[in-house]
């Protein structure tokens, strides 16, 4: 049973902003399908009465106090920017759709 179609691969590639050639798409149809098939295998297990694992770490409540620590110098912060005017990170003009 085909778990993954080429359209699925193209959709996921689109979300990740990746451009894939045809051969890679075909390859991924197989690989992603295998991963989902393995999930089916896991689904065969009886998990009645078992708490869902919401997080892999056993720890909880690791906090820091609300204290201000030194920040980077602006020069250092901008050092690796592909483009900057010394104040801002410069990026190709974006349409402000204000995502969040």
């Amino acid at each position, binding site marked *: 049973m085909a778990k993954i179609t080429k359209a699925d691969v193209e959709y996921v590639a689109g*979300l990740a*902003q990746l451009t894939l050639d045809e051969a890679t798409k075909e390859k991924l149809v197989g690989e992603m399908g295998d991963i989902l098939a393995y999930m089916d295998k896991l689904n065969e297990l009886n998990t009645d009465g078992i708490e869902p694992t*919401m*997080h*892999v*770490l056993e*720890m*909880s*409540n*690791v*906090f*820091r*106090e*609300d*204290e*201000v*620590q*030194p*920040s*980077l110098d*602006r020069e250092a*912060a*901008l050092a690796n920017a592909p*483009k900057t*005017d010394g*104040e*801002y*990170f*410069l*990026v*190709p*003009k*974006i349409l*402000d*759709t*204000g*995502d*969040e």
Partner: protein
Amino acid sequence: MKYEPVIGMEVHVELSTKSKVFCGCSTNFHAPANSNVCPVCLGMPGVLPVINKRAVEMSVMVGLALNCTISRWSKMDRKNYFYPDLAKNYQISQYDLPLCHDGFIDIKANGTSKRIGITRAHLEEDTARNTHTIGGGDSGVDFNRCGVTLLEIVTEPDIRGAEEAFAYLTELKQLLRYLDVSDCNMEEGSLRAEANISIRPTGTESFGTKTEVKNVASFSGIQKAIEFEIARQAKLIDEGGKVVQETRGWDADRGITFSQRAKESAHDYRYFPDPDLVPIVVDEAWEGRIRESLPELPQARRARFESGYGLSAYDAGVLTAEKEMADYYEAVVKQGCAPKQAANWLSVELQALLTEHKQELTASKVTADRLAAMLKLIEDGTISGKIAKEVLLDMFESGKEPKAIVEEKNLVQISDTSAIESAAREVIAANPGPVAEFRSGKEKTFGFLVGQLMKATKGKANPQMANEVLRKVLKETE
């Protein structure tokens, strides 16, 4: 056709933690661009975010004030999307297990009380600010805001009109200000509201297609945007068209909403638990401690002002609208001043001066102690209410004690009958015409004569005595 609007609101509020939610960078809004940044909030690889405890506590405070259930166990998730406002290509947020859920807030709109359901309030990080005014066709990104503590508060689709939406926002802002968890400054973006709006034929149950209106700079702007959007959707449907699910912006100058982006096939954010951050457990003991730390909330205070001080619902509402005003008022009343008189002098007279001079109450030279001292001078008859206005203005400008002003300017009220009597005789002698008119039955002229008497005593005559004495002398000299 008749339609009923169905509205849900999403409010993003920046919580006023001193440092960011996952790193120690300052949250100072006025810092130069990209100066409050570090490898964590810049999204560098290999860094480890650690959650700010105060951010959790403030979120729980808001949740409790909104009558929410506080999750015993919650976690942070990654919301994945590509946009220059987030360098790591995901926002740390909460997906299926928000810190606070299933609450409500009561609002007053159109003269009636109404309960608005709160679906959830979850903790997340704010994003960087994009600047489009940079020359050369580029956009600038400032990461100072990235990582600032953000709480997103989502309502049920319980709101039925622009006025209710306005009332909800006003009530919510007041609550947040009382909790002292945010300055709620819309201009600086520390409170941002979005409305999901749809309409349906009145009396039906199913929902219509919604549009999302965002990027509105004021509560009144949101009210207008919602009004516009309801009318636009109704016209569209009446003319046989269909509402398209999309994000719409608000053009305040033209008073219209406009399409910003079609929401094709809803966003696919592929949320998953953030492996860098461990779960948050708020047990009963911690929740209890936070609950005990809550201040008296606006609705409780309003009710207490009405019952405890005998104020009208209107006065209680005005005095409790801002926490600072309510605190000031109580400081005055505590000194033994009559509650109604104090309410009037504060919310009318002093407020008028503050508004005129664009001054904050807390910055005024008229402190609660000084206003109380002045009210006492009125109550014990030292000055009249009219003179008190002059004293108030002097205090407002000079910051002097009211008693000193009264002595300096010789404003003590004349309550000495003989002094008022002789002034009354002078007024009668000087105004034979009006006096004759009054005696021929023109009662209105009496007011003019009282005015003359007050003028002759430079406003210092005890007004009630002035009335009585003038009538008496008029009769005697008839």
